[in-house]
C-alpha cells in the first residue's frame, strides 16, 4: 500500500465518501429490485387483485394476514410468496443504514482516524441496543 502515502490528505475523506456512496447505492438498487419483483409476483399469484374491489379492504385493514416474523417470511419465501419477497426487500432497505455505520467504523480505522472510529463504534452499539430493546418491547 505505498500509494496511500502519495495521496494528499483530503483524499482519505474522499475514499470514505466513495465507499459509503457505493454501499448505499448497492443497498438501494438491490432492495428496489426485490420489492418490485415481489410486488409483481403478488399480482401474478392473485390475478383477482387486478380487478376485485373487495380484496383491497382486506389487504389494507390487515385482515389479510401478512408475515412479520423472520420465520414466517422464510416459509413464505420458500413458496415464492410475493409479499414475503417484498418484506425481504424492505428488511434489506432497513439494514442498509446500519451496514453503512458498520462499514464506516472500518473505513475510519483504515484511515487511522481514531476519534471518528470510536464515535462510529458508539453509534453502532447504540443502534444494536435499540434493536434489542425494540425486540423486548414489541
Amino acid at each position: 500500500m505505498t500509494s496511500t502515502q502519495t495521496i494528499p490528505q483530503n483524499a482519505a475523506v474522499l475514499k470514505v465518501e466513495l465507499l459509503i456512496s457505493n454501499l448505499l447505492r448497492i443497498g438501494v438498487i438491490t432492495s428496489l429490485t426485490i420489492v418490485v419483483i415481489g410486488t409483481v409476483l403478488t399480482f401474478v399469484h392473485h390475478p383477482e387483485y387486478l380487478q376485485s374491489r373487495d380484496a383491497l379492504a382486506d389487504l389494507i385493514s390487515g385482515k389479510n394476514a401478512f408475515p412479520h416474523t423472520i420465520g414466517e417470511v422464510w416459509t413464505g419465501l420458500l413458496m415464492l410468496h410475493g409479499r414475503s419477497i417484498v418484506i425481504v426487500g424492505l428488511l434489506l432497505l432497513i439494514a442498509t443504514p446500519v451496514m453503512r455505520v458498520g462499514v464506516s467504523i472500518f473505513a475510519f480505522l483504515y484511515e487511522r482516524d481514531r476519534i471518528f472510529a470510536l464515535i462510529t463504534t458508539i453509534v453502532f452499539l447504540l443502534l444494536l441496543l435499540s434493536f434489542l430493546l425494540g425486540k423486548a418491547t414489541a
Partner: protein
Amino acid sequence: MNSCMSPLAFTFITFAASIVAGVCGSILGLGGGIVVIPVLTLLLGVDIRFAIGASIVSVIATSSGAAAAYVREHMTNLRVAMLLELGTTSGALTGAFLGGLIAGRWLFLIFSVVMGYSALAMFQKRHSDPSVPVPPDPIADRLKLHGEYFDEQAGEVVRYRVTHTPLGLALMYVAGMVSGLLGIGSGSLKVPAMDLAMHLPIKVSSTTSNFMIGVTGAASAGVYFARGDINPFIAGPVAAGVLIGATLGSRLLGRLKSSWVRVAFVVVLLWVCLQMAYKGIVG
C-alpha cells in the same frame, strides 16, 4: 374512497404519491412522512398503524436513495453527520425509555412552539451571507468538521466553518428524543439545529439531515416490523416510489437556489408546527 378501487390501482396511486414524497423529502432533508401519512390515511383509507409503518420505511428510503448522490457530490458533511448521530441515537434510546412517562400532549405543544420559533428564525436568515465569519469553535477544529462543496446553482465552491458543536450535539439529543417519543419530526428538528446553531449552509444542513435520518429510522423500524405495522402491500410501493423520487430529488437540489430551499423548508416547518399544535390541543 378505497371501496371503489382495485388493489392494482391502490398500488399505482401509492407508488405515484411516494415519488412526490421522495422528491420533496430528499430536497428538504425530511423523511417524507408528511406526504405519505395523509395520502395513505385520508385519501386511501389505510389504517393509521400501517401508514406510520410505511412512513418509517419512507424515511429510510429517502435517506439511502438520496444520500448515495449527496455524499458523492460532497454536499453531505459526513463528519458532522457521524458526530451528531451520537446525539440522535442516544436521544432516541432515551425517548424509548421515557415513552410512557411523559404526556405526549404537552410535548406536542412545546415542540409546536419550538418549530414555530425555528421557522421564523430560519426565515430571517434568508439574506444572510454564508461567508460571514462564525464564532471560533476549537472542537470543530479538532474534529476537522469544516467543509466545502460545489454549489451547482451558484456556480462556485462554498467554503464554510462549523461552530457551536456542543450545542448542536445537545440539540440532536433532544431531536432524537422527540422523534423517539412522538414518532415525528426526525428531519424537521435536525435541519434547524444545524442551520441556526452550527451555521451550516442550508443545502449542507438538508443533505446532512437526510444522511442521518436513515439511521434514526432504521433504529425504530425493527420495532415496527416486529409489531406487524409494516404491511408489505402498503410499504412495498411506498419504498419503491420514495427510492425513485429521492434519486430524482438528489439531482434537483444542486440546481436549486439556496434561498428557495430555505423558504420551502420554512413553509413545511410551519405546517408541522400547526399539526403539532392541533394534536396538542385536541389530544
